[in-house]
């Protein structure tokens, strides 16, 4: 099972890309843990997580093909 990860704002600088694919992540907590392990700088950044465009408070189960976005604080307008 695979999920697509979308990165925005300052996170694109930490990762050096705007999206990546992760395999075998059961839920959004697993995504956070996996990415924070690979990119320790992520731990210093405040960000929200959205699964298929819905902001997650807490943890959410993922299924194959879902899109998880990591979003730093917004600054539109």
């Amino acid at each position: 099972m695979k999920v697509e990860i979308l990165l925005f704002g300052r996170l694109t600088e930490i990762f050096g890309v705007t999206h990546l694919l992760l395999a075998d992540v059961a839920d959004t907590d697993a995504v956070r843990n996996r990415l924070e392990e690979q990119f320790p700088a992520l731990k210093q950044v405040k960000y929200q997580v959205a699964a298929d465009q819905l902001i997650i408070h807490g943890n959410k189960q993922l299924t194959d093909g879902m899109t998880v976005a990591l979003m730093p604080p917004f600054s539109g307008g």
Partner: protein
Amino acid sequence: MKEKKLKNIFINGAVSAQFIAESIQKHQHNTTIGAHSIFLGQVRADQIGEEKVAGINYTAYEEMALNKMYEIREAIFEKYPVICLHVHHSLGLVPAGEVCLFVFCSSVHRKAAMEACDELVERIKAELPIWGKEILTNAAHQWKENK
């Protein structure tokens, strides 16, 4: 259930004064309108240490932003007796002094347009997944954060 029709709010680069003038003109045929309330967000040349902000480069999670904007529009139409609402936000680089956000609300009487416009701007800033990267005069940058 009515069909969900997403409106594209994004404009490449700054919102021009001409675009704003044309939008106002387009509403002249609708004579039930008695009030327009317009908000224009302009890029400030903030002083950052020795440097200044030369411009802001905007990026967005476009798909989510358009869905969120649809939801906000519906809520505003429900709450206020407005005739129409238009929102335009820049993507890409907007130089200091130029307009990056144009919100246009029209109603029969002024109160509804003014209140709807105010609430729209607040919600756009708080809820739309848009990011501004402030480009400084020495080409360094920092990420903006809405207060």
